[in-house]
C-alpha cells in the first residue's frame, strides 16, 4: 500500500477546506481528479484520510501549532490517492476560522519539486523511525539539529530557503488559484454576484 508515486503536474492546484474540527468541508475538482476520491468520500471525514500514514507526528504537530497561532502556515506533505498511490505536495494553510463569511482552514497544495522531495522523503522516514523507537521528544531534537545543519531556525524557514524565499514560494502557490479565489472556493457559501464573477473569470482564462 502507498508504494507507487503518482506524479502530478506543477500547474495543478489542489484546494481543500477544513472545518474547525479538522473535518473536510470542501475539495476542488482538481482534488477529486487527482486522488480518485469523490466529494462524498471526503466531505465530513477527518483530513487525516488524505494524509500518508507515515507522515511524522513531529512535523504535523508543529504545523497544527502554527495553524492555531499564525494566519498563514506552510507544510510539505505526503498525500495518498484512493487506490493507494502517494504524492508529495508543498502547501500553504490559511486560518480563517474567525471570519464571519465562509470561515474555515484553507489548504492550497502544489507539486513538490523533485530535488526538494528527495531530501524531505529521507527526513520524514528518519523522523517516523525515531518517533516509533525513541519517541517524539528525541525526534524533535533530531529535527532541530537537522535544521541547524541547514541554517534554518524553523521548518518553515527551511521550506522558504528551498524555494529561494517566502515570496517565491507564495508566487508558486498562487499561480493558478489566488487568495481571493481560494477563500471563496466553497460554492455553497457564494452569493449570485460572486458566482457570476467566478464564472466570468474562468471564461476569460480560456481565451488566453
Amino acid at each position: 500500500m502507498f508504494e507507487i508515486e503518482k506524479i502530478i503536474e506543477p500547474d495543478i492546484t489542489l484546494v481543500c477546506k477544513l472545518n474547525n474540527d479538522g473535518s473536510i468541508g470542501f475539495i476542488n475538482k482538481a482534488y477529486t481528479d487527482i486522488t480518485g476520491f469523490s466529494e462524498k468520500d471526503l466531505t465530513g471525514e477527518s483530513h487525516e484520510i488524505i494524509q500518508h500514514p507515515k507522515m511524522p507526528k513531529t512535523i504535523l504537530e508543529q504545523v497544527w501549532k502554527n495553524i492555531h497561532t499564525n494566519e498563514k502556515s506552510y507544510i510539505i506533505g505526503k498525500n495518498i490517492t484512493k487506490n493507494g498511490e502517494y504524492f508529495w505536495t508543498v502547501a500553504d494553510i490559511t486560518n480563517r476560522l474567525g471570519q464571519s463569511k465562509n470561515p474555515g482552514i484553507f489548504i492550497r497544495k502544489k507539486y513538490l519539486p523533485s530535488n526538494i522531495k528527495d531530501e524531505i522523503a529521507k527526513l520524514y522516514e528518519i523522523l517516523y523511525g525515531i518517533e516509533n523507537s525513541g519517541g517524539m521528544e528525541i525526534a524533535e531534537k533530531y529535527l532541530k539539529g537537522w535544521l541547524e545543519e541547514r541554517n534554518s531556525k524553523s521548518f518553515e524557514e527551511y521550506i522558504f530557503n528551498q524555494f529561494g524565499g517566502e515570496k517565491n514560494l507564495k508566487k508558486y502557490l498562487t499561480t493558478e488559484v489566488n487568495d481571493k479565489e481560494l477563500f471563496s472556493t466553497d460554492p455553497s457559501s457564494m452569493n449570485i454576484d460572486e458566482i457570476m464573477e467566478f464564472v466570468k473569470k474562468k471564461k476569460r482564462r480560456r481565451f488566453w
Partner: protein
Amino acid sequence: MKRIERPTPVNEEIKLNPMRTIMSKTDAKGIIEYANDYFMEISGYKEWELMGQPHNVIRHPDMPKSIFKILWDRINQGMPTYALVKNLAKDGRYYWVIAYFIPVSKEGKIINHYAKRKAIPDEIKDEITSLYNMLLELEKTGGMEAAEAYFLSYLEEQKMSYDEFIFDTMRLSEKELKKYMDAQITDESLGLDMSAEEAIKNSVKKKRRFFW
C-alpha cells in the same frame, strides 16, 4: 529505550573521505540528539538506533579512558577541545578521526555539545596508537589516575599544553587545523581517492590569486 549492544571489534579499518565531515550533536551529558549523513554512513547505524543513546555506543575499547576524562574536564568548563579518537562502527570495524568538540552554553549553563570529525593521516594513527597503548597499559595496572598523571607529566616535560600537543601531533598550526576541519565539499564523490595528507595540504594552502 533499548540499549544498543556493543559490537565485537574486528581489526579492519574504514577508509574515510578526508573532504567530508562526520558531525554530531549531544545534550550536556553526551546523549546524541543529531548526527549527519556521513556519521550514519560511516558508523553503519540508522538514526532511529542512535538518537537518544549515549555517545559511547561508538566508543572503541582501544581508546584510553584517560583521554575521555581530559576531554570531559575541558568541555565541561566550556573549552572547545580537539581529540584524536578511534571509533567503533556497527560492524566492528574502526575509523580514526580528529574530533573537535564545541560546547554551547545558554545563560551560563552548557546545553549542548557539537563534534566535527575529519580523517587523519596514517602516520599519525601509528604515532597516537603507541601513546594510547601505553595509556591503556597504565590504566590496567595503575588505574585511570596513573594514566592521566603520566600523560600530563609527559606534556609538562615537553612544555606543551594539551592544545599544543594536538597541533604538534597533527603537524599543523591552530589556524591550519581549523581550515582543515572546516573544509567542506558539496559533491560527495570528490575526495574519495584522496589521502588525508593531500586533503590537508589542499585545504591549508593559501589560495593563489591569478591576475590573468
